[in-house]
């Protein structure tokens, strides 16, 4: 969107904003963490177990946030991820119960591939707004999940699946944690050190300019939405492993948390930027707050109030930095 400018002021504003957009989340994370550690020390907030809990509870969001960072970096959006996770969880559970582990995983991934391809195809080549396409998809996909399961859970017995997908541990670490770390690491490298990542940000920064430069912007948009679909499917299987069953509700509403994590992390909804690590901390920040507030013994309404306040204050402070 933005084009050249020659005022020092504006440049400086941008520099400053860029800085805080990059860093506020880390600051916020540390501050809140320390606060909770002090206030909730005796509630076991800092116990290894609880810290692992936070990691576990934010793993699926973090993973989807990595993919969403790419989508938003191209100035598109994917609202269907929550539903895709739900459908993938039931489809893989069903396939598994009849044809075993491998079939189950393949089927789950297939869900992500198909939905992602449709989203991507419509946005990339028919040039329709991703907000609407993926919003329609959100309803359609969850509907399918309910339809084929009659809204009932599909139990998963396969121990290996549960062990690998979110249920078990790899050595001392919860498998969920490992999944998250791998996704974030790969995502960060791809975004910052590969042609693809570069072209993703170029597409979001100025689609037309990117096209003139020989970036196949349509294909880029197709890929990021495909990716987002597949990753959502994996997240769905992680839910399934964790809850030892597939169900259409797994992942419901995650899209908002994921987008929030990405933006908190410093990626702009208007595209051109993509802070993968930031997104991870955005997710951790949200998880941290949720965990702390529940530990603090607040009831649902109070949790909502404080959680909202914390986000607003964090955002507001971040800007104070800028103008000071």
């Amino acid at each position, binding site marked *: 969107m933005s084009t050249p400018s020659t005022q*020092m002021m504006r*440049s400086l504003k941008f*520099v400053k904003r860029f800085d805080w957009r990059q860093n506020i989340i880390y600051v916020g994370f540390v501050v809140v963490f320390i606060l909770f550690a002090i206030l909730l020390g005796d509630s076991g907030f800092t116990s290894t177990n609880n810290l692992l809990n936070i990691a576990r509870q934010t793993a699926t969001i973090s993973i989807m946030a990595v993919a969403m960072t790419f989508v938003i970096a191209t100035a598109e959006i994917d609202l269907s991820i929550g539903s895709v996770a739900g459908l993938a969880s039931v489809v893989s559970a069903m396939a598994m119960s009849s044809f075993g582990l491998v079939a189950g995983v393949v089927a789950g991934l297939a869900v992500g591939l198909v939905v992602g391809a449709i989203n991507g195809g419509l946005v990339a080549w028919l040039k329709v707004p991703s907000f609407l396409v993926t919003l329609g998809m959100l309803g359609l996909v969850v509907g399918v999940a309910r339809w084929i399961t009659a809204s009932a859970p599909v139990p998963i017995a396969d121990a290996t699946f549960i062990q690998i997908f979110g249920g078990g541990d790899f050595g001392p670490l919860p498998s969920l944690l490992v999944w998250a770390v791998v996704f974030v690491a790969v995502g960060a490298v791809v975004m910052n050190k590969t042609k693809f990542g570069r072209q993703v*940000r170029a597409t979001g920064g100025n689609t037309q300019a990117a*096209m003139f430069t*020989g*970036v196949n912007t349509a294909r880029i948009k197709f890929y990021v939405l495909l990716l987002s679909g597949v990753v959502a499917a994996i997240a769905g299987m992680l839910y399934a492993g964790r809850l030892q069953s597939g169900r259409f509700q797994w992942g419901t509403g995650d899209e908002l948390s994921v987008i929030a994590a990405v933006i908190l992390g410093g990626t702009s909804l208007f595209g051109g*930027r993509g802070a993968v690590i930031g997104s991870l901390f955005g997710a951790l920040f949200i998880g941290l707050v949720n965990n702390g507030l529940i530990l603090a013994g607040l009831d649902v309404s109070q949790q909502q109030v404080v959680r909202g306040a914390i986000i607003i204050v964090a955002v507001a402070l971040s800007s104070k930095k800028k103008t000071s």
Partner: protein
Amino acid sequence: MSTSPVLAVEMTDITKAFNSVPVLREVNFELMVGEVHALAGENGAGKSTLMKILQGVYQRDSGEVKVLGEVVSLTDTFAARAAGIGMVFQEFSLIPTLTVWQNIFLTAEPLGKFGLINDGLARKKAQEIFDDMGVAVDVTALLEHLPTALWQLTEIAKALAQNARVLIMDEPTASLAKHETNALFELIERLKARGISIIYISHRMDEVYRVADRITVLRDGQNALTAKLADVTPAQIVAAIVGREMSGNLTYEDRSARISKDAVLRVTGLGSGRRLSNISFDLHRGEILGLAGLMGSGRTELVNTLFGIDRAHAGSVEIDGKNVSIRNPGHAISLGLALIPEDRRAQGLVLEHSVQENLTLPLLDGLKGGLLLSTQKIVERAREMIATFSIKVADQRMPVAKLSGGNQQKVVIGKWLGTDPSILMMDEPTAGVDIGTKQEILAMVREIADDGKAVILISSELPELLSVSDRILVLRDGEVVRNFLRADIPSEEFLQLAVQGA
């Protein structure tokens, strides 16, 4: 048609229409290997369109294109790049959110181990290209933080990095100051020597004579002239461009009689941003004050500060003897100021809004019928302005983005002159405007001053400054270093030296 020497590019009978408005009609254009071929014509004549067809951005309706003897289809930009055609776009092809070096190597990044981008190498190469061009830039800066001039230079560096065999430069110097322009010309000589063929689009006659071997002129989307520059006079070229004999350029005339003694604007010890410090000068009713300086010298920052976009942190500003602290552009406008900004696309226009809406945005108060805006008044007002500034547009409800570069600039100028300001500030107003219109604009500037308004004019084209200014301030590193009466400036060279600080 000419057979030898072999042609780098041969475009035959090219026609193109946009929603049934013809823009190019059987245009022929040829470029020899190692030749620099100038392409000229009025704003809207079809130059960029022809080049975008060669670049695969637009598809021709009919006609044939050969590159190095091969017929090429040029269905998209990839095909064109594959055919070895690189382009310096008039509306830049750069990504604001990427750094200079990332832009330069976009899609052509040097790869290191594991197929990952070798940042170090890319940065080094980018720096080399700029050194080669004789320009100092921080290649790790984000584009969105840089001024127009640097965008233009980056755009050029990017085209060079593609080491294309055919290089299209669409008004590469539109907002470059003299010394960057010179650096560019030396570069072009070197490229020629390497057998690279160059198409050079410009509205500046002196540049055309300086770099080009041949020239082709388009008028209303048709061939008007193709000749060796050795064989044509500037007058002939201008005639071909505007389609009639044109009275010579505006020349300086002493207007001191028309300039009143009392200052309409008095700036004292003004400081702003990081670099603007201790600026003091008076501006009188009826006066045209020129600002000269190198890129980054602070001219734009000065006018932006006076217009309330940047906040002054020191000094005082008086208008009509009253001390004012200008809060924002709205406030500035209410005080009778107007600013034609340097960067038309970013600061002058809402690109996807119609020509009509852009022209009337600052005038809405005067276009009411009762409580509500009157569509009829808006349409008529816009029509008048389009006529006054001979803006070439098929339909005034067309998005301004679809106008030619120069015509976009005219919309910005028109919109501001429409507000009938008492102090008019113009930052590179004639960048990208064709010769005929440029003269009209300068004449208009003089008229405006003549009926008692005051004008501040920023231009990197010294002849232009010298032709209309009554007084010229030279800025360097954010300070006023010289303050000349026009009469005391013997020659362009003299001013050039002052600007360079030699």
